[in-house]
């Protein structure tokens, strides 16, 4: 560990899988052709030169498409796979939730499974015993604990597994795979409540997902993995932008994805100018107007959706809308231009805000112009509020006399 602030350090890790075309599963092949080269092997480079570090108390995201190598990376951090080269240092105890209910046995009772599952995660019988009641309460299956697991409904099994995992998880580093976030709506709600609780408790969490919304909401920082390469290591907003670009522009080179482009798109229609924009807001009755002129290329013909999104200083989106939602059609032909204005009520607290502006095609299939942080403004109000938004609330009081 180079830096004691770090909980996990991954340095230049490579992982190759040797995939034999024909497996030497039987000794027969050894006898038949002991001297012949037995198989043609193909090496798959699952991860190439991955380095990053996770600080203590950080909620860290690993993002990537299916097959990008993120699960392999996760398994290496968890110590299940060994890196082909490079090192992975983990400080403290690590509990991987790669899957819920690892080692659950249908022939054992719920109670016995709790102890088995807990032991697999490294908890002694005493530790589990102390928290046993809490686990049962959380799972809400008290009357079933002495029944065999095979008589449980699948929903009950998941609840039990999840409560063992969450109640016991007092480890230094937690690894959460996206499988945790599947299930019905009420279960997801429980999961997300649990994530918030972890974040509040300043746990070191490594969260693997391709759900960008969850990553944006919970993670402090993230990396994006694509084709075994680390594309970007940065704020969740940067990673989310790169991730979205990856889908919008399948031909984009990896190196281009890494660059945090402030502005990108097909440029069939572009934001020509921003005519009106806020800079400093001091009072609620002040005008917060966005006005912009857009122009299409000569060859372009069709509908355009223009939208905006206002984000706080943590890059968290607060409000936004677009012309599609507002049922306004923008038809542009022959290089025509149009002017759009939005009037927004001042509901913001004191602080710095930025606005993304985006022009998209009718079905959101292609992005014409995506301008990150096109506008930046500050709010300094007299009226303070500890809530996220601070609209004008009319408060009335009338004394009633008898």
């Amino acid at each position, binding site marked *: 560990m180079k830096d004691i602030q770090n909980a996990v350090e991954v340095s230049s890790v490579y992982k190759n899988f040797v995939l034999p075309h024909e497996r*030497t*599963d039987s000794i*027969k092949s050894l006898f038949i052709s002991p001297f012949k080269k037995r198989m043609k092997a193909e090496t798959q480079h699952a991860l190439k030169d991955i380095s990053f570090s996770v600080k203590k108390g950080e909620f860290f995201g690993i993002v990537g498409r299916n097959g990008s190598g993120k699960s392999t990376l996760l398994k290496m951090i968890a110590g*299940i*796979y060994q890196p082909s080269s490079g090192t992975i240092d983990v400080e403290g105890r690590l509990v*991987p939730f790669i899957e819920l209910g*690892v080692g659950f046995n249908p022939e*054992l009772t719920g109670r016995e499974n709790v102890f088995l599952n807990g032991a*697999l995660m490294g908890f002694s019988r005493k530790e589990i015993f102390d928290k046993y009641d809490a686990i049962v309460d959380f799972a809400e299956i008290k009357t079933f604990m002495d029944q065999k697991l095979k008589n449980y409904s699948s929903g009950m099994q998941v609840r039990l597994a999840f409560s063992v995992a969450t109640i016991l998880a007092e480890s230094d580093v937690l690894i959460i795979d996206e499988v945790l976030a599947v299930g019905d709506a009420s279960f997801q709600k429980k999961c997300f409540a649990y994530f918030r609780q972890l974040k509040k408790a300043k746990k070191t969490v490594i969260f693997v997902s391709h759900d960008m919304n969850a990553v944006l909401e919970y993670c402090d920082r993230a990396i994006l993995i694509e084709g075994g390469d680390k594309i970007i290591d940065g704020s969740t907003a940067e990673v989310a932008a790169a991730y979205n670009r990856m889908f919008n522009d399948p031909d984009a080179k990896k190196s281009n994805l890494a660059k945090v482009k402030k502005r990108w798109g097909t440029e069939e229609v572009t934001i020509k100018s921003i005519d009106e924009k806020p800079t400093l807001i001091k009072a609620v009755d002040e005008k917060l107007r966005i006005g912009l002129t857009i122009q299409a290329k000569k060859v372009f013909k069709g509908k355009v959706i223009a939208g905006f999104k206002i984000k706080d200083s943590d890059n968290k989106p607060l409000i936004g809308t677009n012309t599609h939602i507002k049922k306004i059609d923008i038809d542009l032909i022959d290089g025509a231009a149009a002017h759009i204005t939005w009037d927004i009520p001042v509901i913001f607290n004191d602080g710095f805000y930025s606005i993304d502006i985006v022009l998209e095609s009718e079905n959101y299939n292609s992005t014409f112009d995506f301008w990150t942080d096109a506008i930046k403004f500050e709010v300094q109000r007299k009226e303070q509020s500890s809530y996220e938004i601070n609209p004008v609330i009319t408060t009335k009081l009338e004394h009633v006399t008898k």
Partner: protein
Amino acid sequence: MNSLKNIRSKYRYSTILLRQLVITDFKLRYKGSTLGYVWSLLRPLALFAVLYVVFVHFLRFGQGIQHYEVSLLLGIVLWNYFTEVTSNGLSAIVGRGDLMRKLSFPRYIIIVAGSASALINLAINLIVVSIFMVINGVQLSWSVLLIIPLILELFVFAIGVAFLLGALFVRFRDINYIWEVILQAGFYATPILYPLSMVVAFSTTAAQLIMLNPVAQIVQDVRAAVINPDTPTLLSLYGTWYVYLIPLTIVVMVAVIGAIYFRKRSPGFAEEI
């Protein structure tokens, strides 16, 4: 300081896991059967009954040998222990593939847990043997204590084989059939159901050769120490203590090779299974 903490936490995890796996193994072993744990006694007793009727009663094996019935039972119990540890060890790693792919834990725990629960089983069976000994009127002497180092030797040998087979089975799935045949042959190549004196009468060289097998050496030594001091042993056949170096070397070699091979292969188990 830090590494000391790491070592301790690693050791802690291993003991927790070992304990829980042994408990689970015992709970699961006879789950659903009416007689439950009684089966761990009934199985060797049933085998003993069959072998006794066929070989002692009809074929008249062990005529004129004192307490031959108890010797037969003891031999079966020891052989069963060896079979249990090695066969369970063989399939243990592949059988727990789902755990391997999802958790990182010291892989050797699985093999150790398997042999530990077999050891508990052996202890229960030895109690039955001792009841038979009392019924049969076997005279006990201080030499009974020799059973401890001898069982230890059997434990080390069996676990060494289990490590080797468990790791090999991940790669070569034919091993289990081969091992079945070897065990079958080993049962007849070891003086369990026939007295070694029969082999000596036929050919001393053959008896001497048979006794170089560590399991044969252990079985005969345990019988000599516990039941009948006249039982032919490696010492009595060769007349020198030096010959013990051969089975002991085999035991140590197998254990060391098994442990090294297992250790070398275990980081890749999750990927290969």
